[in-house]
């Protein structure tokens, strides 16, 4: 029983970086653009998020303000990188896959270089502490699993219904879905296709930046070159996995993270199981579920990856 509680209470905060990044990627893809640069934006976010409390708040008492500033900076730069990406693939219609890989390398490389310049070595920050919810966190089993995390965990899960609402119940969400599915139709009815794509990419970038900062400030509490460890790419995969729907994407993020927590627990418990296979577990699980989940192409953004040119019929 304890073992299960451990896995769950470990897996849930693990899922947050993936969840935030993939919800951001969901807005990108719903608008018809996939951003493989997510990993790079996350790396920048992780570095910048930590830089603020590390350099300003150094030595002094940990002030939540610096953490908020760090998160804010990560989001602003993330949004700017998203807009830069839009400039390349929306305005100049560069192929999205290649441009995304470029952005990924740019982000990871720049973050690492700046890190060595401004911080260097393994420096940790106090980061964002846990905020057990009074009362609720005392409930046996439920309390440690759901109500003893840092504040970003709660916010990230609250963001799932919010993302759903934005996507399906607001005019902006409607426009995003339209330009990702049939940009021509959206254009003919007066929607500015490229503008909506810029907006979606800015939102997606901001969320990727936030996800990165979550890793350096709340999960690992330090920065290293490998801090993102492919989560940006997993986030992109989770969007397909979740059929562009926030709730299913959350399911995917949880599944992956719980498998990861299980994998760590197996290693930690000293169970006699080759660790190489344990490490593979989360990835294998995602592949299996992907293989068996039914295609629902019809409901997804059918113009994903295609740039829009009004005067060209195809």
């Amino acid at each position, binding site marked *: 029983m304890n073992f299960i509680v451990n896995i769950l209470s470990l897996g849930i905060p693990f899922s947050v970086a993936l969840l935030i990044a993939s919800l951001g990627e969901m807005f990108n893809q719903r608008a018809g653009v996939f951003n493989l640069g997510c990993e790079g934006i996350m790396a920048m976010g992780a570095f910048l998020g930590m830089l603020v409390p590390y350099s300003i708040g150094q030595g002094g008492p940990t002030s939540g303000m610096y953490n908020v500033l760090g998160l804010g900076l990560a989001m602003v730069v993330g949004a700017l990188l998203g807009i830069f990406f839009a400039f390349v693939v929306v305005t100049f219609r560069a192929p999205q896959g290649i441009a995304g890989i470029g952005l990924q390398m740019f982000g990871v490389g720049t973050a690492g270089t700046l890190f060595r310049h401004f911080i260097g070595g393994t420096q940790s920050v106090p980061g964002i502490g846990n905020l057990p919810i009074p009362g609720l966190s005392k409930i046996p089993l439920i309390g440690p699993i759901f109500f003893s995390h840092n504040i970003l965990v709660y916010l990230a899960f609250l963001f799932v219904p919010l993302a759903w609402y934005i996507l399906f119940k607001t005019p902006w969400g409607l426009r995003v879905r*339209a330009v990702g*599915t049939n940009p021509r139709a959206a254009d003919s009815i007066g929607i*500015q296709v490229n503008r909506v794509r810029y907006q979606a990419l800015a939102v997606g970038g901001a969320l990727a930046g936030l996800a990165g900062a979550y890793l350096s400030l709340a999960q690992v509490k330090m920065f290293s070159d490998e801090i993102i460890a492919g989560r940006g790419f997993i986030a992109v995969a989770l969007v397909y996995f979740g059929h562009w729907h926030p709730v299913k994407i959350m399911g995917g993020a949880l599944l992956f993270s719980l498998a990861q927590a299980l994998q760590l627990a197996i290693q930690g418990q000293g169970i006699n199981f080759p660790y190489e296979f344990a490490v593979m577990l989360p990835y294998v699980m995602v592949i299996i579920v992907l293989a068996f989940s039914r295609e629902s192409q019809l409901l997804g953004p059918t113009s994903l990856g295609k740039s829009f040119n009004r005067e060209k*019929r195809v």
Partner: protein
Amino acid sequence: MELTQKKITNLRVEHITKRFPGVLASDDITLEISEGQILALVGENGAGKTTLMNILMGLYQPDEGRILINGEEVHFRSPNDAFAAGLGMVHQQYMLVANMTVLENIALGFKAAWSPYKLNLEMVRDRITEVAKKYGLSVDPDAYIWQLSVGEQQRVELVKTLCLGARFLILDEPTSALTPQETDELIVLLKNMSSELSIIFISHKLQEVKDLSDKITILRHGAVVFEGNTHEHSPSDIAALMTGHEVDLPLNEEPACEGIPVLDIKSLNVKSDRGFLALNDLNLTICSGEIVGLAGVSGNGQRELAESINGLRKVENGEIQFYGENIANKSPHHIIEAGMGYIPEERNTEGIVPSFSMKENLILKDTEHKEFSRYAFLKNKAIDKNAEDLRVKFDIRSPNISIAAGSLSGGNIQKVILAREISRRPKFLIAVYPIRGLDLGAAEFIHKQLLEIRHEGIGILLISEELDEILDLSDRVAVIFKGQIQKVLARKDANRRSLGILMAGVKDDQTV
């Protein structure tokens, strides 16, 4: 964007020229239309009608020329500018987002329902109900577009444009997929509306043009070749002016041939996209060398029948015997190899691959055949020759054979599909609305082709809503109603009246 409520008393385009790579789509066009007028714009496939309208809507920028509203020059940089001036358009290629509902599609253009944090769908719903009531066009606001037939989608397009409140209507082939009754109703509706607004109406059905319009303009190769008052010309005059020769739709006058049954459908049950039984114990037998016309109001199972015969839709139970083999639930590849030809209803999604070149689309079903490939390589010379021959024979208007099929005009895309399906000489052909969107000259040619392959012994199932087309070509006429064949009539017993009664669901014609 401020919507002006100013009336459009006069709209004029002057010297509009528009070039696409290899095509002069608009060639120095000047036109004028005043308040309360209905102008019919007619012309062969690829004449440049849609292009000119897209320029009016701000979707294309003209290379030369200008647009004047009430004598003042306007510049439309996007459809928003055109909407603001009061223009609205029903597009030939429907502008609908497939994975959204009818309601959402209309909300997309209904800016009054957009508050920043909430989409006021109820407001849109009220507006749809109001428009549907006022104009007698019924649509289900909660249906997803992908669930709708082409005819239903066309109705949604119309409702959408009416909901958005245009004061100058552009209708690009708005009736091509409507039922005859709906068409008649629309014509009456438009006539009534013309007292308060102006309309540009594009159609290949000259009877409609005659019934509705005040003035006619004919385009050919992008240029205006004729302008006149409608009441001074008969439909056949217009046809002759348009095509340059007398048009004479051929009739099937040969005796019903006595071939062997080749397609034998037995108690077929198939579900629709929405999950209910669209075909309910349907039985139908067709022989080689005969044309069976399937008459019926669209939405009675025509689409499901065509798709299930071609392996594109699951058969719940029942048999489809094709040359002695049950092809129910076989793969489309297997069915094509067995000799089935298919002209689908959805030409852009099922008939062609829009981004492939025209010549590639013309061999899409035969890529593995000896004629076009050897040792896994395509024989480019043979493919080019095939495309050149078909382009000439079927009069496909395109600058060259390597152009992306999706950039052709609507009617020419249809010709590409027809050319492929007819020239491959299948053993049997399912033709769904084969002349939809074709100009009269092309329709005449296609009908001749269908009669010719019938003569060669190919059986044809002709699905159409045009009773004239069915009566002209069929040896026998089957009437479909609610997923069942009401009755099969011999050609001599089929006429507009007897079919109309059966199509409305009255089975026993003794009672009428």
